[in-house]
């Protein structure tokens, strides 16, 4: 693949806007009577890499899923790229978006799951080109070219015709990252991308994510990989019981946590 045809791992952000990529104000979410998010305040700047850590059940996944509207926010406000999630502002009124518009906005946000969730009935290449062709209606030739260069970047160019079940977990997760990037998102969400992997496979996935971060992509990463957070994250956010308890530069939150609950959690994961 020549340099001219290769797609760099870059984010297509709206430079004109000065809004942060994600802004949450007192975001609340309940499932039935269980309140999972109890007023989350958080900002993710453009090009920033934010790692979210916290105990199981603290609402990290739920918050990520609110960002791309896989879950509906019950209270508070959530903006992505200057737009209220799930709504369109016209004048001083918020109009709830039609399903089609919601899908369109979701397509601008990439998401990587703990269990990869590749489409098992499609080859690796088909996994990558499916959404850009259907959701963005892009021509097959263009998408294929982009997909192949992305596969090259995650080190799996030779696996284009393989089915997911013939790949290792680490390879599957790299395909999943490439699949999300093939939509040319402006923001990438990662929900424990390495938690389901054998330890020796974690490194390859983290390397891809490191490349992505250095290319300027805005990333929200839920992870228990403290070394990754320390090295790559601009900021670390500590979640507990549905709230952001502590946040700051990675070195500060990890090495010198201020809050007792953060300290207890970090002792446990180490």
């Amino acid at each position: 693949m020549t340099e001219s045809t290769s797609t760099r791992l870059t984010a297509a952000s709206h430079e004109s806007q000065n809004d942060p990529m994600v802004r949450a104000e007192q975001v609340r979410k309940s499932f039935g009577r269980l309140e999972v998010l109890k007023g989350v305040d958080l900002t993710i700047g453009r090009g920033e890499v934010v790692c979210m850590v916290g105990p199981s059940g603290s609402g990290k996944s739920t918050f990520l899923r609110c960002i791309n509207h896989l879950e509906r926010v019950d209270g508070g406000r959530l903006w992505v790229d200057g737009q209220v999630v799930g709504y369109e502002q016209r004048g001083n009124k918020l109009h709830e978006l039609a399903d089609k518009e919601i899908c369109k906005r979701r397509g601008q946000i990439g998401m990587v799951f703990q269990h990869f969730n590749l489409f098992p009935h499609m080859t690796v290449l088909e996994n990558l080109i499916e959404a850009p062709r259907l959701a963005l209606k892009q021509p097959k030739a263009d998408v294929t070219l982009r997909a192949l260069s992305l596969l090259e970047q995650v080190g799996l160019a030779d696996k284009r015709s393989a089915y997911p079940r013939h790949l290792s977990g680490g390879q599957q997760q790299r395909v999943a990252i490439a699949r999300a990037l093939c939509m040319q998102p402006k923001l990438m969400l990662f929900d424990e991308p390495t938690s389901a992997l054998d330890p020796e496979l974690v490194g390859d996935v983290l390397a891809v994510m490191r490349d992505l971060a250095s290319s300027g992509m805005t990333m929200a990463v839920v992870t228990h990989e403290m070394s990754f957070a320390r090295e790559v994250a601009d900021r670390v956010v500590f979640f507990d019981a549905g709230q952001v308890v502590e946040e700051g530069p990675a070195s500060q939150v990890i090495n010198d946590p201020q809050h007792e609950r953060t300290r207890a959690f970090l002792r446990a994961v180490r």
Partner: protein
Amino acid sequence: MTADLRRSSEGLSPSPAPGEDLTVVPKRHPGRWVAAAVVVLIGVALLRSVVGNERFQWDVVNLYLRDVSVAQGLWLTIWLTAVCMVVGVVLGIVLAVMRISANPVIRSGAFGYVSFFRGTPLLVQLLFWYNLAALYPVITLGLPGIHLDANQLITPLTAAILGLGLNEAAYMSEIVRAGIISVDHGQQEAAGALGLTRSQTMRRVILPQAMRVIIPPTGNETIGMLKMTSLVSVLAVPDLLYSAQIIYNRTFQPIPLLIVASIWYLVVTTLLTIGQFYVERHFARGNKVLPPTPLQRLRALLATHTPLAKGDLS
């Protein structure tokens, strides 16, 4: 490979002298041979009693096996099976998607449909459709300008298609629903996160994976449908069975003509079974090890029963 074999058997006793070749003696299965012989014997005895019995009138069977009106009946049976299965599958998918809708009214509508059509006998449904004109002499579909004469519209054939197709849809919807439920929820999630709409997700991600679960019972349904179409003989639709009946009412030879019909039903179900095998294979791709084709299986069988040539253990 001979070298490998020698090395691996060195730990065992008595170890052969270096350079000496080993002969492999396959395990014997005497029990299997006895069981197979018993089955073959019973089969031969049955065949002889059937072929040797003149009362089966094999000459008449032979004559009508190629009869034109039987062939026409066979064609109608196949055509009716195909049309009713298409109606059943398409409507079944719609009903299955309705069953998992977020809207409770749509959900209960589909549930009511399935309960009704599964809860009443097919023969009764067929007769109801046939007699629809008695209930609704004029069909308007509730739309202005539509004014259809039910007696003309509901011919025996339309009654047959409605009866068989709508009934089939109820069963197919349960099969499709089981297939949809069998697909991991993460698939829907991933498709949604990629910006696919609900219908795109259903068509491109969920249903193709559900097919693995849907296809085998659908094959059974198709074979069942082929035989169920014989019920339409009560509506005087000239299918395979009814064509045979017309002939034997004239010639008073019911047994050979029923055999003719049975032979044709058997031929078509056999062909359908073969087709089902290959369709299942197609939809299993990417998911599991493909089952071998009969040709591959035959080759494997011959391979295991051929004594291994010396040094051919690879």
